């Protein structure tokens, strides 16, 4: 296409082609670096525990387990079942602790309180503790992420 006078010259076109390709190559090198430096670590989908460790729990007794890198909390319910939560405060990610006298979970960072069902009752936490599903299969106790929809 012949243009007598043009602001966008052939030289500019070739320059942008080179620069653009160079930029694309640079981006393709940067992207794996970014992926390496920001590793996509996710929580486990399920954790397997030994029933023997938890079978002897009395009602309303609370024990902890490892949910990936976070603490998990298991409580024995009155009907000899189990409830589990991710033991991380929904406010700013501090680990919560069980206070047996009050039968509540307490987060020491900003004085947040959850009742024995994990519901936030006092202090800054905006949501209840995240629930996890527990199922006993033979000798194993499985703690899993709840099915979609039931997640707190």
């Amino acid at each position: 296409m012949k243009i007598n006078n043009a602001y966008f010259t052939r030289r500019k076109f070739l320059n942008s082609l080179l620069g653009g390709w160079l930029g694309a190559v640079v981006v393709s090198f940067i992207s794996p670096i970014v992926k390496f430096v920001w590793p996509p670590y996710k929580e486990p989908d399920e954790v397997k525990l030994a029933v023997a460790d938890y079978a002897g729990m009395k009602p309303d007794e609370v024990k902890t387990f490892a949910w990936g890198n976070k603490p998990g909390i298991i409580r024995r319910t009155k009907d000899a079942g189990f409830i589990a939560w991710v033991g991380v405060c929904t406010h700013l990610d501090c680990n919560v602790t069980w206070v047996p006298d009050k039968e509540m979970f307490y987060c020491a960072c900003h004085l947040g309180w959850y009742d024995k069902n994990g519901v936030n009752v006092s202090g800054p936490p905006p949501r209840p503790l995240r629930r996890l599903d527990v199922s006993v299969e033979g000798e194993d106790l499985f703690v899993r992420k709840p099915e979609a929809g039931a997640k707190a």
Partner: protein
Amino acid sequence: MRGIRILCLLAMVSLVLTPLAALQTSTTPASGPPAKAEVKAGAKPAAAPEAKPAGKPAATKAPVKRTEPVVPAYSDIKQRSAVIVFYVWLWFSIAVLVYFLLQWVKEADRVYKAKYYEPEESPRKGNPMAPALGE
């Protein structure tokens, strides 16, 4: 003009994304660690990182102390193909870039020989190819 620029941009973006996509699918780690962690204060997690996560390791890691060397190797054909695609794309890109750079070198030499640009008179910043008049 603008249309051509947009077309070039699209071509380049797709050229970048194709091998990237090929690499990403074979090198993202499996979602989370294999999650069957034995939990107790003392027990070590039986972490057997399956060869899928990231790159091409084919090591089997013993639970406590590794006695086998970790040898990088392909774990599936997809990884091998991804590496070959990347390899071809890399050298193709280098060929294209070197071609353009050689053109630019020729132009810079021509400009210098024609004394179009005298170092004492006009220090050039930025794009040395932009002529002093217009543009």
